[in-house]
């Protein structure tokens, strides 16, 4: 059994014992069916008898308040905001994900470092900088990327909320004063970032333009081997991103 690994930077103070739980990440834009799939997968795995801890990019205790303030218009520059999100992620990793994995639970993450890296890069950070910033993250056992076209995301957002969200449209980036146009452009940019990460981080990309039932079936098929008695495990599924990765 191989020890669980990270993306290049060892965190100080990590527990010595093996992190036996499984780390499953579901990535995808809002409207890709990500949250629905996380709920369904959690339910299914619990029925199978596994202990599941779900986590996401929700605000942690540590920096939740400054992030909320930043979003309400206390404007922060791109680098500051990227570092603030990284702090939030590190807090969740160390205080929630690691202890859960140490206790043997499966951690089901509704988004992970990949969304954070994509957001930072489309706002001007270099890919190399973002990769190094998040190099302390634990390597998941499985990353599923729910890939949907921006047009599909747009139709789903409008039918669900009746409008396009300010942040999901990348309005802070001044791409276009027209929210419709900005949304399509911004989501297209994020999708391009996921394309290189798919290669470098070994995602399993699923066509999320389809009905959620079909997506769920595919996800179940990808998850099943993680619980097969013979197929363990951690850190062996994804290849290490090349150190010369594009930047």
């Amino acid at each position, binding site marked *: 059994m191989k020890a669980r690994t990270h993306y290049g*930077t*060892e*965190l*100080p*103070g990590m527990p010595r014992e093996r992190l036996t739980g499984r780390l499953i990440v579901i990535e995808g834009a809002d409207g890709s069916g990500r949250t629905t799939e996380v709920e369904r997968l959690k339910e299914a795995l619990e029925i199978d008898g596994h202990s599941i801890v779900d986590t996401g990019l929700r605000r942690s*205790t*540590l*920096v939740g*308040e*400054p992030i909320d303030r930043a979003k309400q218009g206390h404007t*922060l*520059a791109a*680098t*500051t905001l990227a*570092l*603030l999100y*990284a*702090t939030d992620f*590190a*807090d969740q990793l*160390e*205080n929630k994900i690691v202890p859960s994995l140490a206790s043997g639970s499966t951690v089901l993450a509704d988004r992970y470092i990949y969304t954070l890296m994509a957001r930072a890069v489309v706002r001007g950070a270099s890919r190399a*900088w973002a990769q*190094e*910033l998040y*190099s*302390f993250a634990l390597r998941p056992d499985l990353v599923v990327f729910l890939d949907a076209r921006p047009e599909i995301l747009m139709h789903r957002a409008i039918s669900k909320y009746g409008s396009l969200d300010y942040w999901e449209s990348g309005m802070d980036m001044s791409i276009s004063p027209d929210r419709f146009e900005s949304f399509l452009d911004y989501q297209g940019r994020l999708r391009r970032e996921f394309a290189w990460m798919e290669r470098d981080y070994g995602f399993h990309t699923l066509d999320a333009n389809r009905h959620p039932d079909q997506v769920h079936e595919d996800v179940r098929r990808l998850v099943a081997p993680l619980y097969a008695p013979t197929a363990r495990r951690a850190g062996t599924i994804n290849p290490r991103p090349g150190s010369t990765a594009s930047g």
Partner: protein
Amino acid sequence: MADPGTPAQGYPGRLIVFEGLDGSGKSTQARLLGKWLQSRGYRVFHTEWNSSELVSESIRRGKKKGLLTPTTFSLLHATDFADRFERQILPPLRAGYLVVCDRYSFTAFARDEARGCAPTWVRNLYLFAPKPDRTYYFRVPVDVTLRRKRASRSKISYYEAGMDLGLSDQTEESYRRFQGRLKQAYDRMARTERFTILDARGSVETIQQSLRADLAPLLQGFPTGERLQHEG
């Protein structure tokens, strides 16, 4: 580092950094230097390595609930510095003024590495911070800073003593070891980052005189505030 008179990083302003252990006297010297520069007509911006409102509350809360780790501690300070850099340091630097920083990214390099963070990772966090035109390192033995602390009857703070590292239960012993690590880090950087080293055991007056003498070439042809505000 740039040659005297040549601005680093292509910014028209000048970035002057003061580094060293607590109690090395660098803050006093930075203040006195600022006064002198102002009296000569230069527009000077002074910043300190203090936690801004953005993260100070987070640090307080994290400490109280025992949530802070070397990594989040490091990231919080980087966030804070990035915010200060983008608001307070970069605009005057681009506008062509003098910026005096009482501590800069080197403080984070020394502290975070002493807490076990990976050096490459920490340096990457601060890639946004340009190399200063001058970095003055106030070199002083740890014992001297401890004597100065006692003399001024100021208390050793929790993080100053590196108490979070569990080096010793005794504040003073922990302080000695932690500050010793910081000093080693500074001494190493003095070579790699080309610090200008000042023996901080000298008198305030002597040190200030050598500072002013060293800085003079950097100011040659540098415009005063008056000249930047009025044409003709």
